[in-house]
């Protein structure tokens, strides 16, 4: 009968909802150090004139939100008949100071690839050639450093930047893996 009594006491405590601990009232902060990709910057340097440097920025400082990204600076104006060295930089600007994630991507270059794809209206006028390689065998492009050659026509369109995460499946093509970044830059070919 003693057992029964203690059983009833224990259970009645639960019955009226007495809780010793209320862990849920303390919200656990996120694990520090997690990095978000918020910003993609492209740096274009004219191969003929190092002083002719263009910066274009695409950013979304609220990566988890439905707020639209800031694309006011995501514009690239290049001169026809020129070629540019294009470098890609990726930042986490939710932190202060901003963290450059590009070295981390380069470190994991064996399963990452950054693609730059001109839209159809400029596809025949812009040639993007990646100039960096990973340590896969045979070596594949990483795409963070590129040479962009512009033809002799004035045109405008979009340049799409895609960072693919391709663990064990990287084969130089766009198809495998999942997309970490997919952003668009306005791309104008001027005089």
């Amino acid at each position, binding site marked *: 009968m003693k057992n029964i009594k203690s059983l009833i006491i224990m259970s009645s405590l639960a019955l009226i909802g007495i809780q010793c601990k209320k862990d849920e009232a*303390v919200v656990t*902060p996120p694990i520090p150090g997690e*990095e978000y990709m918020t910003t993609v910057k492209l740096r274009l340097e004219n191969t003929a004139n190092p002083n002719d440097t263009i910066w274009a920025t695409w950013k979304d400082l609220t990566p988890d939100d439905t707020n639209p990204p800031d694309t006011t600076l995501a514009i690239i104006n290049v001169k026809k008949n020129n070629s540019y060295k294009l470098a890609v930089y990726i930042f986490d600007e939710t932190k202060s100071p901003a963290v450059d994630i590009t070295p981390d991507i380069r470190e994991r270059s064996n399963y990452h690839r950054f693609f730059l794809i001109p839209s159809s209206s400029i596809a025949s006028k812009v040639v993007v050639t990646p100039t960096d390689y990973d340590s896969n065998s045979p070596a594949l492009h990483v795409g963070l450093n590129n040479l962009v050659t512009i033809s002799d026509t004035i045109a405008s369109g979009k340049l799409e930047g895609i960072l693919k995460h391709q663990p064990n499946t990287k084969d130089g093509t766009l198809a495998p*893996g*999942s*997309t970490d970044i997919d952003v668009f830059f306005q791309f104008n070919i001027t005089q």
Partner: protein
Amino acid sequence: MKYFALIFVVFQLFIGFTQEKNCNLQFEGYVRDKISKKEISFSTIKFLDKTGTTDSSGYFKFSGLCVGNYEVEAYHYENEKPVVISFNLINDTLIFIEVEECFHEIDEVLVEGHKINKQEIETLQKNTLSGAELDKLRGNSLGESLKAITGVNSIQTGPTISKPMIHGVYGNRILILNNGVRLEGQNWGSDHAPEIDPFVATKLSVVKGAASIRYGMDAIAGVVLVEPKELPSKKSMNGEFNLVGSSNGKSGITSGTIEGAFGKKFEGLAYRIQGTMKTSGSYSTPNYYLTNTGMNEKNYSAAINYRKEKWNLESYYSNFDSKLGIYSGSYVGNLTDLYAVFNSKQPLVPSIFSYSIKRGYQTANHQLFKLKGEYNFSKLSKLIYTYSRQINKRSEFGQDLSYNDEIVAKNIPDAYFKLATDLSELIWEHSSIGHLNGCLGVQFETQGNIYEGLDYRALIPNYRNYSGGAFILEKIHFGKWSVEGGIRYDYKWMKTYSIDFTTLQKRSQLMDWQNASGSLGTIYRINSKSTINLSTSVGWRPPSPIELFAFGIHQSAASFEIGDSTLKTEKSLTIQSFYTYSTKKTFLEIGGYYNYYSDYIYLNPMSKPIVTIAGTYPGFEYKQANVYYYGLDLNFSTDLGERIEVSTKNSLVYAYNLTIKDYLINVPSNRYQLALKYSIDKIFKVKSIFFQLGTSFIDKQYRTPKNVDYVAAPNAYFLMNFDLGFVVPIKNQSITFNLVVDNLLNTTYRDYLNRFRYYSDELGRNISLKIKVPFNIIQAN
């Protein structure tokens, strides 16, 4: 007064017919005086070839019976003219035989659908898998096993995750009762499989239709019951071993049970220990492996029961632990990726078989502790108190590793949830207050949920809730009619705790809901072979945390989901009817239902896609609408000659959203199954041999909502399966063998209810061998 009653129950069933049916039923009852309602003790009972007497309370019991049509013949001991009563045995049955001084005037026999201590809603349709039918399904997950019941489907996420779906409805609208305790896990996720080891059960049942009255708010569309068998009462020690090996996934399962009861000083004390281990490598479709779909599971449970005089005390502990790999090809960054995967005939990931599970996996641990005390005032009335505590821990590990090496080294889950639930209920069950029997009860629950993750974007926030409900459910029997009705009232209170991820301010929200539910049903026994049931109910459920607070990308679905904290209570009105006909040759069950929901909560596509750095996602928000479901289930089997049985199971569902004037998503398409079974009683020493060839045709779902799904519903498909079963007696034991071949023709197909139909085909041929070895250490005398 003393009477002598002699009761014969003539076993009219046919061996071949019974093998596949539920042969685990109990038949029990009382012999009592019609006027005084006093039980008549020491009557002689004859049942089949057994003879017994009623005990001092007029009670008798026979178990291990099959579904079918029986006849009870009752005689006065002085050999008067017998009175014949026929009835259907579909569920555990309690019978009252009421006699007048002249015994031959048995003018009233009450047959109940269930035995007295399992108060369920009798007027609802209940289908049970047990015995030989369950043996064939051993090794399958709970969701997969239940698909053997007409009208039950499963919503799947790849080969290892499947959730039961009753009449087209799933998730928070279906309750799972694990050994009498409502399973409380993170039920909101369609990729969260129920944390239950089906090996704990000797019976898996589905109650179709609204059962909220007895079980609470979230039983709005049905209940799944996972029931272990009763512990032994006589001194004994025995057990059972189950071994299952399957070709697809090269999986192996072992499960063992030892149970027993003590004698002498410890009489009344009984126990059971049970454990299961399951390991599988990557599953395969007809053409490729589903890379990283291996899984492993380790489960155990223990039960102790003490019975003395009018007391029955029970304690139960179970621990479920699983690790499931998520198909590598299902990780897509955005909508473009999803289309790329879908448009590619071959997967974009290499086809690799392995037992090891890499990132892109989930782990779930579920612990249940239960204490139950029962006090029997008499055989016909008792008070039951149950307390349970459940702790559910779930970790989800995404495929993508963090860019921060420190985090990578720690192997931290992307999301971790811990849900602790305390439940208690007090129920008084009674029968035969006049012709009335039923139960009254109160239930209390409190839950605390904790979320930890890599960012502030909690898919569901931390919360604490309290809820309570009180109900009454009563049945009355007169002649060929039974009427059952109940009312219930529930109240739920919830407080959430979260951090705003832009301002880092703490936020809390208080919410509460309350409402009444009601049900009314009737059974009419047309004759000894057929019955017709009709029931209706009104129910409700409060919105779940995900529906209220979701905010973020649902990775496996490539969608951005947004909750709405202003959602109201969802209400339902259900009407259903079914007809059962059973003879020794034929079994027919046909049922129809109409379910109307007002403020039904569902995911609605948003007009504008959501742009993030990872690309474009279609946005979905939780909305409410008025919807209805209707459908038909048909289950028919008949014997063609002595050895051949033909059976068919069919289910049709139609669902429509009245508010937006379009169909509902994720509703099962029409399903038709036909099977042919050939049975042989005995070849030499081998017994109960059967061969079964099954076919199923699953139609394409033509009724899908516009602009919601990314890809069209897959085509209709046709599958064949083959079973061979037999029993080999070795010494005193009977070893049961089952050879099951699923997808016999190795057909390539995709199913509408599998979320991974975007990424891969369904499983190819699977050959499984299932062996059940019972053993006996101390024989019961």
